[in-house]
């Protein structure tokens, strides 16, 4: 499969503390990758570094997207090239109405006419259970866990990225929202989007064909194990500690 995202020997530091520690990962077009790992293993750091968060300093290594280096690009430039990250903890933005924000997004990023944008927003919002009233609320303000995560998916649906990075879309979410997000993930994948899913649990994969997934286990900022669906089951059954002991990953 043609390479979409290629990460080579990546080292990332936050406030001079190195969190990602020589990480290599290849994601081909349309592929479905899962990154799992215990707390503090660097999962969210990886996502934020890929998106270009200013606090995450790239000490070494390469991140190539469609064959081009993206280290040094601003977050908006990365987004415009087709990378989208759904946040684990989406920000509240007081005073900014969802509808105004989404309209601006479609206008500026996709070059869409306001009327057309309005129409598409209304349609896609409904698919993610957002009523027209809810579109007049402020971004993430007073949202439940499920609403926040569904709103992230709505934005991905509108922007149609080439690479969708999902940072724990299954944390703090009600069962129904989880099921919907899982379903949407399958749709994204079917339409050819590459997915990099960061998660603790396997339950979000309920609608996904297990045979298609590539699984990577992260420990102390490096990928120590890669495999297929059976890795997810093993982690769920035995826990990270035991798996690390068995593979000799603690050495």
């Amino acid at each position: 499969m043609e390479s979409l995202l290629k990460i080579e020997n990546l080292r990332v530091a936050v406030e001079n503390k190195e969190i990602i520690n020589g990480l290599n990962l290849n994601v081909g077009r349309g592929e479905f990758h899962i990154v799992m790992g215990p707390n503090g293993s660097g999962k969210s750091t990886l996502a934020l570094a890929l998106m270009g968060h200013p606090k995450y300093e790239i000490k070494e290594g390469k991140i190539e997207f469609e064959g081009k280096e993206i280290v040094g690009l601003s977050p908006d430039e990365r987004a415009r090239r087709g990378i989208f990250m759904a946040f684990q903890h989406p920000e509240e933005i007081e005073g900014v109405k969802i509808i105004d924000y989404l309209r601006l997004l479609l206008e500026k990023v996709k070059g869409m006419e306001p009327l057309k944008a309005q129409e598409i927003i209304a349609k896609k919002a409904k698919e993610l259970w957002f009523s027209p009233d809810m579109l007049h609320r402020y971004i993430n303000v007073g949202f439940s866990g499920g609403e926040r995560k569904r709103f992230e998916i709505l934005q991905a649906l509108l922007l149609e990225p080439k690479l969708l990075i999902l940072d724990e879309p299954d944390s703090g979410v009600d069962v129904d929202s989880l099921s919907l997000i899982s379903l949407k993930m399958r749709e994204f994948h079917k339409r050819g989007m590459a997915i990099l899913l960061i998660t603790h649990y396997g339950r979000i994969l309920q609608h996904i064909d297990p045979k298609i997934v590539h699984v990577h286990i992260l420990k102390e900022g490096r990928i120590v194990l890669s495999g297929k669906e059976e890795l997810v089951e093993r982690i769920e059954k035995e826990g990270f500690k035991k798996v690390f002991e068995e593979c000799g990953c603690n050495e």
Partner: protein
Amino acid sequence: MNDAQEIRYQIEEQIELLSERNKEPEWMTRLRYRGLKAFLEAPHNDPVIKDPLEFVIHRSQEIFPEVKSLDDLPPEMRSLLDRLGIAEVEKKYVTGLAVQSDTSIVLNEFLKQWREKGLIVESMEDAIRNHPHLKERFMHLFDPGESKLAAYHTAVWNGGVYIRVKSGLKVPMPLHLFFLIQNSALAQAPHIIIEAEPGSEIHLIEGCTSPILLRHSLHLDMTEAYIGEGAKLRLSVLQNWPEYVHTRPMTRARVGKNAEFINTTVGLGTGKSNIANPKYWVDKGGYVELNTIILGKKDFYIDMGGEMYLQGIGARGLNASKSVIMDNSRVITKGIIKAMAPKTKGHISCDALILNSSAKMETYPGLVSHVDDAELSHEAAIGKIREEELFYLMSRGLKEEEATQLIVKGFVDPLLKDIPMEFVVEIRKIIEMAVSGGF
């Protein structure tokens, strides 16, 4: 001739000119002379204008053509009205529009019809001749001797408008008032009196601007509002001054029993310096709300006060301000609420968004209670745009500038609830341009 004599002579000349031009009743001319006397004696404590005398100027013989309709306005003014969407507002909604250019008031059909129902809108010069009872209103909420600027206004006021809404009359559409000051020979000191009689309702939108060449750089408008029992007055003021103007708006209101006064000020172009300390006296069950939006940029100095005296049982006051501050501007807010009767409530809130580190914001809320069962509170939040907020929006593809504009708009918008959509659109545009360094 020494300085004091020279000043006296110049102001006297202006008084005589105005008195004769306006064919004023004698009480008004006497009041002007009281202003002159006070000007020479009153204290001056303006932090920006060190010497008010520099603003006293020689009178000129320039005569401006009378303005009878919007078409008579100079092209610059027309284009300004167009830019603000005023002409459109009028066309679309046939709403009240009174444009004042010096002493002429341009009345449209709407106002002619409503006059019969009891809505009076007259230039202040006409009103002084037509309504003798204004002797008991004019300068009754101010004292000419309280400051040099109040005194100067008293002596040389010109222009302004008188509005009276008859008892029980409810005016459903906002009435737009525009002060376009073109006669540079006179001090810019319009005087406004609003009488909302018991049970009446009106929304006034005042746009202050001086779009054409000015020799003056000091603007001293004064507003006195008398709100009768159960009446509702909304006064929304949009300020859009050139950068060289110093403005000292003076607003005072007496809010009657169970009456309501919503006073919103949007200061987009506040001028080089803008100092205002409106005062409100609120009777039993009455309510006053002061909403202020400030855009501080360049080296502007803006000082917004607001004193609320809750004199009657159950009177309430809210002073809410939102400031967006950038460049080297300095914004100070210092509201005071005094609870003087039982069961009164007051709240001061001050939010500021600071866009760069050289801009300065200070806030000094003042709460004073003379009774033991008043509820008084305040809150203030001064901060920068959070990095995480910006990152969230940028990670979706918005440029830093676009994301900043969106956040600033979201910060300001909640206070624009009283402003018609046409203006909100214009206000947003001005804010966007300022944030992106467009002017």
